[in-house]
């Protein structure tokens, strides 16, 4: 593990466009110092993918992204051998056919390994892939090297990249893989953190509009039985709409006697059943009084 030179000793402290809690900063810095992958989980919309972008820009490291789909194979991250075009070129008598290197297409991991400076490598939504996918990447992530059978060469990382892996918990990850990672769960932000997140995205929001909007947001989140609770990114979208619409704080303000359906609530609740449930609950409340 010691063959590769260490990363430059910089630390991540959040950025002007991304609010990171103390434990998240610690997680990133521990992963940087100890050169381990960092696995990020959390509710959808809590900024898992954005973290890699922000870390890369804050530390001025290039960002390489690998978005995982259900059909992605581990090998595709290393390299692919394009046998078909080599075969075609051989038919046409192309000179480059003699060198197999011309037909090896480098994957994201290879690019990260051969980069001249340390990079941030984002493996996004690893849980989308096949259930064995993480196991196939164990050695590559652990030892930071892999073997290219076609050219018989060993590719070893010049600098260990900072690997950030996100997961939405659709599949559980194998233990052997987890043991090698740091794990951070992005908890849903409390009202104070939320206020500073919103301030970063909408600096001109009137304070009372924000207070009223946050209040109804947390009320909606606390409703029992919602299929998909609104998350940070939905709140930010909703605020954008409220601002664009010029809604006054009074329209949002909910008192005990006066329970309202907040305007544009379709931006918060994206599930038809949730919307119906919410409207029913509000009506029920009103009829009770």
């Amino acid at each position: 593990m010691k063959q590769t030179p260490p990363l430059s000793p910089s630390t991540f402290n959040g950025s002007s466009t991304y609010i990171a809690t103390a434990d998240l900063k610690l997680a990133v810095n521990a992963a940087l110092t100890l050169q381990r992958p960092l696995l990020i989980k959390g509710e959808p919309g809590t900024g898992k993918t954005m973290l890699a972008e922000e870390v890369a820009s804050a530390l001025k490291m290039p960002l390489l992204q690998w978005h995982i789909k259900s059909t992605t194979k581990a090998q595709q991250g290393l390299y692919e051998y394009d046998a078909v075009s080599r075969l075609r070129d051989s038919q046409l008598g192309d000179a480059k056919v003699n060198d197999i290197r011309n037909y090896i297409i480098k994957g994201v991991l290879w690019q990260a390994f051969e980069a001249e400076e340390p990079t941030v490598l984002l493996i996004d939504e690893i849980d989308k892939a096949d259930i064995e996918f993480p196991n196939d990447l164990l050695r590559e992530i652990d030892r930071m090297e892999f073997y290219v059978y076609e050219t018989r060469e060993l590719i070893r990382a010049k600098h260990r990249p900072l690997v950030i892996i996100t997961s939405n918990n659709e599949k559980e990850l194998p233990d052997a893989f987890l043991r090698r990672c740091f794990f951070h769960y992005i908890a849903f932000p409390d009202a104070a953190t939320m206020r500073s997140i919103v301030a970063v995205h909408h600096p001109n929001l009137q304070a009372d509009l924000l207070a009223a909007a946050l209040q109804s947001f947390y009320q909606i989140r606390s409703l029992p039985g919602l299929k998909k609770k609104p998350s940070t990114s939905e709140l930010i979208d909703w605020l954008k709409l409220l601002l664009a619409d010029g809604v006054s704080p009074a329209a949002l303000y909910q008192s005990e006697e006066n329970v309202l359906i907040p305007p544009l609530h379709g931006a918060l609740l994206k599930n038809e059943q949730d919307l119906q449930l919410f409207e029913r609950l509000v009506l029920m409340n009103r009829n009770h009084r």
Partner: protein
Amino acid sequence: MLIDFFSQLKKAKIPVSILEFLTLLEALKQGVITPSIDAFYQLARLTLVKDEQYFDRFDQVFGAYFQGIENIITLQPEIPLAWLEKQLQRVLTAEEKAALQKLGGPEALKKRLAELMQEQKGRHEGGKKWLGTGGSSPFGNAGYHPEGIRLGGESAGNRTAIKVWEAREFKDYDSNLALSSRNIKIALRRLRRFARTGSALEFDLDKTIHSTAANAGMLDIQMRPERHNQVKVLLLMDVGGSMDDHVARVAELFSAAKSEFKHLEHYYFHNCVYERLWQSNRRRRDQISATQDIINTYSADYKLIFVGDATMSPYEILSPGGSVEFDNRESGAAWLKRLLNHFPHYAWLNPEPEAVWQYRQSIEMVQNLLQGKMYPVTLAGLESAMRQLSK
């Protein structure tokens, strides 16, 4: 000393490994954190716990282990230092801890603290009400109370330190699942039948070599369709009544099956199958499918899987009109037989533990009807069911 902490985590059934423990020690050596207990808490959780469902258990172990170790506190001038000096560490039993009543939210605590500040005149220790150390009063340090205020700390008044590990924020995520969805999916994978159908998208090397050779060396590329899992599953699930105890496990099984099989059809029944089934429990009154139609719709290569506890009174199976819900003209047994005749591959998954099966008459009867193809909802049971189905 940390080895002790590690073994306590292990004892609390948090899956920690030596590799992770060494990582933690290395992180400490490299000075990732400034020496404070909060940072250590975060670092330890980051390295040792890999699933948020264990966060709560980790918080409890951490709280128990480090209770009393922390005494680096700067004090407010209003409270004399001597009161809070750690003199005595009362070890509370679990019952005592449970008996401690919460005083109400942080606001209530603050108010009470203010009142006590007025009343209290001297040093106090090990008690239950006054400010001091080592007791179970919500105020002071090194003591135990479910929702305490730690005195000292930051500038403005008392810091409302319902600390992370004492607040136990991650309580909801803890679940002691015997069957995780990953396990279920791996078990369900045994039921696979690959076939090539659809449009030709994949390069077929062997055929290309053949036809290129036949084409006097001029390239003739051959393509073929991709391999897909062609297994088809018809899932019939028991809902309501005695199945309520098993809802969580069956839901887990269902969601795993849904993501694993492309061709999955599901219907619900209550206790036993009769002439009608339904696809949505909300609309079971108006969206009913006749069982005969289902038999006619799905071909015999569908694998039929029942999920139910088969716990009912015997005549719900045996006699016409025995259903608890409506007047069935034919007995449940007749309908079961009809289904089993049409679908040669079938299995019944029973969430009740296998040990109680022999004491329930109806389970035995269903088992006989199914020729013993009933399996418990455990990993081993699922695996043998899938093996049997793929024969």
